[in-house]
């Protein structure tokens, strides 16, 4: 058997990698232990959230699948941070866990060129540091030109509950062994991470009446640019509920600390600080006498509830006892205990910005294997790995997104440049150009790339171009279009804002706080065709409003980008021998040899590399 590209793992990264590569015309083999578990949500049944929602919108604009699947299987949609500025609005949804997998499989099966192989990979075949294929448990050798490893938490997965540990990558599923060992032999460096999951509760044993309800948005918005608003939402919408732990709960948990795999040192892997287990929270924030918990439905027809905020690896009995102390859970039945899982990862300085490994040509890493956590982070990497693997085969240029154009670019640059010691999660604060990387303009930022690589159709691209044109024209128009003083002042006075002394341009007036573009325009229509056109096109209007309102801030960030552009564009040859550059600082030399940055810009972001190291590099680059 032979494929252009083999993808190992049918998780969120694997799905995107396979679909993108096949979409670009490659023959793809997707190796997964159980195709029913395609796109399984092994942690909480939700997609998006702060910064993660941005990633989903970007994946979608690039022609990925996550947004589409999430839209069709979401049972609660919310736009987080709506009270704040547009840059931090983040879409999030609760998903029906079962339906998500069903839909993911349906989509993967609908992409021509993907062969799903129900098997597990046990070894990698390579020759002269170039990938040749994989060996699977049942089928044996399968050859390929590129191999994308997106095996999630399965590499030497080890699950802990109390002092019991069982091999496995996810509840009820086997771990995969062999791959890590092969990679080590090839010269890769491996590390160990940990993540946790909370207990699952039986829905009808919870006293819902006394809990605080959290509803979805009244007018839910889809993730995907291609979801038809008329069909959305596809499923009935559900609520989440909120409860809290208490001192009593903490007391019970403390009884189990002696048998905690975390505190007794059985768990060696590093866990995420932003997602600590409940026992960690109790210890580290002992002054807090309660912690917030979310009860999230696992699906429309599921009788399981996911207790978000209560991830734990304490002994089963302790978990059960502590749960009953929580308000609303007095009678609760725990269907499945929480557990921690440790797994191998490969510190991501070992991959290049295309996600191809620096050591073995044709081998790509994406998802948790690179030390990230989260479905969205995984999917974004899968997509980039898939596109680049296919691009290389098809002789197309590589796709490396800049930090200034996408969260996806920030994600991969962070991983490669700074590596990571804990599971990496995206935050909006990681993006220095946050004001430009908004969820609302993901199409304007990235759809062109999706189109370039054949993952977005021509019509969609033309629609976008039309939108861009309208936005530009609209801005130009509003910079000239004046609102009469009298009308403006009636409007301003009603809002308690300072009055104007002359007719003022719409562009200027909309910069005032609490002034919306639509309402501003509606006071002046006077049957002006251009104004009427603008008002009727919500998407265009939104872009214009944001660009005008925050013009000063947006300009400042753009200037900064331009200033640093030369840096980003000045390439460092991969073969640079840093050891021979005597003038580098010791730490700088070591870090540079490890990361092998592609550009001066990237080099300058490596911790331990000093400004004078950069000067030295600039000098040597000329020679």
């Amino acid at each position, binding site marked *: 058997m032979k494929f252009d590209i083999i993808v190992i793992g049918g998780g969120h990264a694997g799905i995107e990698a396979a679909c993108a590569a096949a979409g670009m015309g490659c023959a793809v083999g997707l190796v997964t232990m159980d195709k029913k578990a395609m796109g399984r949500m092994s942690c909480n049944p939700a997609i998006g959230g702060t910064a993660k929602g941005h990633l989903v919108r970007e994946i979608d604009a690039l022609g990925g699948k996550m947004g589409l699947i999430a839209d069709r299987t979401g049972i609660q949609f919310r736009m987080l941070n709506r009270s704040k500025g547009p840059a931090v609005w983040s879409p999030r949804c609760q998903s029906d866990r079962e339906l998500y997998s069903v839909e993911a499989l349906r989509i993967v099966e609908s992409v021509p060129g993907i062969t799903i192989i129900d098997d597990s990979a046990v070894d990698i075949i390579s020759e002269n540091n170039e990938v040749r294929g994989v060996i699977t448990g049942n089928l044996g050798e399968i050859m390929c030109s590129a191999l994308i490893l997106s095996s999630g938490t399965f590499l030497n997965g080890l699950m802990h509950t109390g002092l019991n540990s069982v091999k496995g990558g996810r509840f009820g599923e086997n771990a995969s062994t062999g791959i890590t060992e092969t990679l080590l032999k090839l010269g890769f460096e491996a590390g160990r991470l940990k993540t946790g999951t909370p207990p699952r509760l039986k829905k009808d044993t919870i006293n819902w009446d006394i809990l605080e309800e959290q509803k979805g948005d009244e007018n839910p918005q889809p993730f995907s640019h291609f979801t038809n608003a008329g069909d959305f939402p596809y499923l009935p919408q559900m609520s989440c509920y909120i409860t809290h732990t208490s001192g009593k709960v903490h007391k019970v948990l403390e009884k189990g600390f002696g048998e905690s795999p975390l505190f007794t040192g059985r768990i060696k892997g590093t866990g995420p600080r932003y*997602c*600590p287990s409940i026992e960690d929270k109790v210890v580290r924030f002992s002054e807090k006498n309660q912690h917030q*918990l979310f009860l999230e439905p696992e699906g429309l027809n599921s009788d399981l509830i996911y207790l978000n905020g209560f991830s734990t690896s304490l002994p089963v009995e302790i978990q059960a006892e502590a749960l009953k102390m929580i308000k609303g859970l007095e009678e609760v039945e725990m269907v499945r205990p929480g557990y921690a899982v440790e797994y191998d990862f490969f510190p991501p300085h070992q991959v290049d910005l295309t996600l191809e490994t620096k050591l073995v040509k044709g081998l790509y890493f994406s998802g948790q294997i690179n030390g990230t956590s989260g479905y969205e982070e995984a999917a974004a990497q899968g997509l980039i790995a898939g596109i680049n693997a296919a691009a290389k085969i098809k002789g197309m240029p590589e796709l490396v997104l800049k930090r200034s154009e996408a969260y996806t670019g920030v994600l991969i640059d962070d991983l490669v440049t700074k590596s990571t010691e804990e599971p990496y999660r995206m*935050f909006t604060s990681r993006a220095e150009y946050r*004001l430009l990387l908004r969820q609302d303009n993901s199409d304007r930022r990235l759809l062109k790339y999706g189109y370039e690589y054949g993952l977005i159709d021509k019509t969609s691209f033309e629609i976008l171009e039309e939108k861009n044109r309208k936005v530009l024209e609209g801005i130009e128009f509003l910079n000239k279009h004046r609102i009469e003083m009298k009308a403006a002042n009636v409007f301003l006075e009603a809002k308690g804002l300072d009055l104007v002394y002359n007719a003022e341009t719409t562009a200027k007036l909309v910069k005032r706080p609490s002034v919306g573009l639509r309402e501003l325009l509606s006071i002046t229509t006077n049957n002006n065709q251009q104004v009427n056109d603008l008002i009727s096109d919500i998407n265009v209007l939104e872009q214009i409003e944001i660009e005008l309102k925050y013009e000063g801030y947006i300009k400042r960030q753009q200037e900064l980008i331009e*200033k640093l552009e030369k840096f980003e564009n*000045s390439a460092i040859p991969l073969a640079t021998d840093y050891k021979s550059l*005597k003038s580098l600082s010791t730490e700088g030399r070591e870090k540079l040899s490890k990361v092998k940055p592609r550009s001066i810009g990237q080099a300058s*972001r490596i911790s331990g590399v000093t400004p004078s190291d950069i000067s*030295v590099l600039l000098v040597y680059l000329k020679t």
Partner: protein
Amino acid sequence: MNISFHEDTITAPATPPGIGALSIIRLSGPESFRLIDKIFKGKKKLSDADTHTLHYGLITEGSSTIDDVVVSVFRKPNSYTGEDVIEITSHGNPFIQRKILELLIAGGARAAEPGEFTRRAYLNNRIDLAQAEAVADVINSSSQASLRGARNQLDGLLSSKVKTLRDGLVETSSLIELELDFSEEDIILIDKSEIAGKIERIKAEIENLLKSFSFGKILRDGVNIAIAGKPNTGKSSLLNYLLRESRAIVSSIPGTTRDIIREDIIIDGFLFRLFDTAGIRSSVDEIEVEGVLRSRNAVKNADLTVFMYDSSEEFPEDLYRELLEVIDRKKLIIVQNKIDLPHIDGPLTDVKISAKTGEGIEKLLHSIKDRAFVNSNYTEKSIIVTNIRHKDCLVRAQDFLEKANISCRQNLSGEFIAADMRNAVEILSEIIGEITTNDILNNIFKNFCIGK
């Protein structure tokens, strides 16, 4: 990391600090001509000048003249760095040198990093290939030298102060980010006015540091003191007394001193630069007229002026008023001289002395020190900014904080405030030469219970 690519315009002294007869300031980059044209008044605009030409003219700030200078023009690529280069040759007075640098920086130039001219020269192929290694070594050793410099007491205090301020900013930024990235968490958020308060407190501290710059300048470059007055009042006699040698010609003929005589003395460890000037009066003598012009300029540029009058004469009301037009009364120490002779006390006098017997000179020195260090509240532990690059950074940081503060006051959403805060943090990090990533997230994870 804030590193400059060679695209902005940089400036630095090209001659070593200290007094020489002349000093040269170099300016290099695409903006060189625009910057020099702003402050140079000569026969023609330098942007119209040919390469490799010299131009005489004045460096001015608004209506006042800083110095008369000679400017050399080198157009790219035929210059030391390969960029447009301007070299300003001024009098070797550190005050003047600093003033010119400040004007250029205020106009948009950036203080050059150690070795930066050489680096640019190299990158623009102005230096031969074989010198690559040597250049790299220069860059590295000069940055090491500045690190070593940073270990001296003054800079050490400054960098720990800046670190504290930076940590304060990181902490404030964390509070802002918390609200953006962790809005779903069960965390009590603080409101904008409190954040604005925090930003303002940090701004005030930076403001204090900036104020110390003028004092820092005194510490390093000394206090410039002009001795001025009508002819024959005893100015040169005072200079000689302080120097304990007859450096200047003293005579009973009014108009003895023609050109400025400059000498340094050290009092209690502080450097004072004395400028004995020609007595000011209207004259027809061409040389004397020029001397008087220089006297006036010296007064204008000095940190302090000893305004001397003769006990045996009327208090020179007219000259006093004239001087007040160019400098602040606070910078004027009015001295009545020749009190060994019969006299009556004049008005407005700060100190009475005799340059002949030495009476009152101790008092005069005290009053000079008091004036020079007034408002500086200087103590051994004072944190003082002496380096113009540090000052430049602090000013830039201050700008960003002001923007952040305005966004705060307008109650804009946190990401707008954070954008400027981030820049301020980066600039402060530049001063301490420490680049750390992810400070904000680390701070959040350390101090807040995050994670559902």
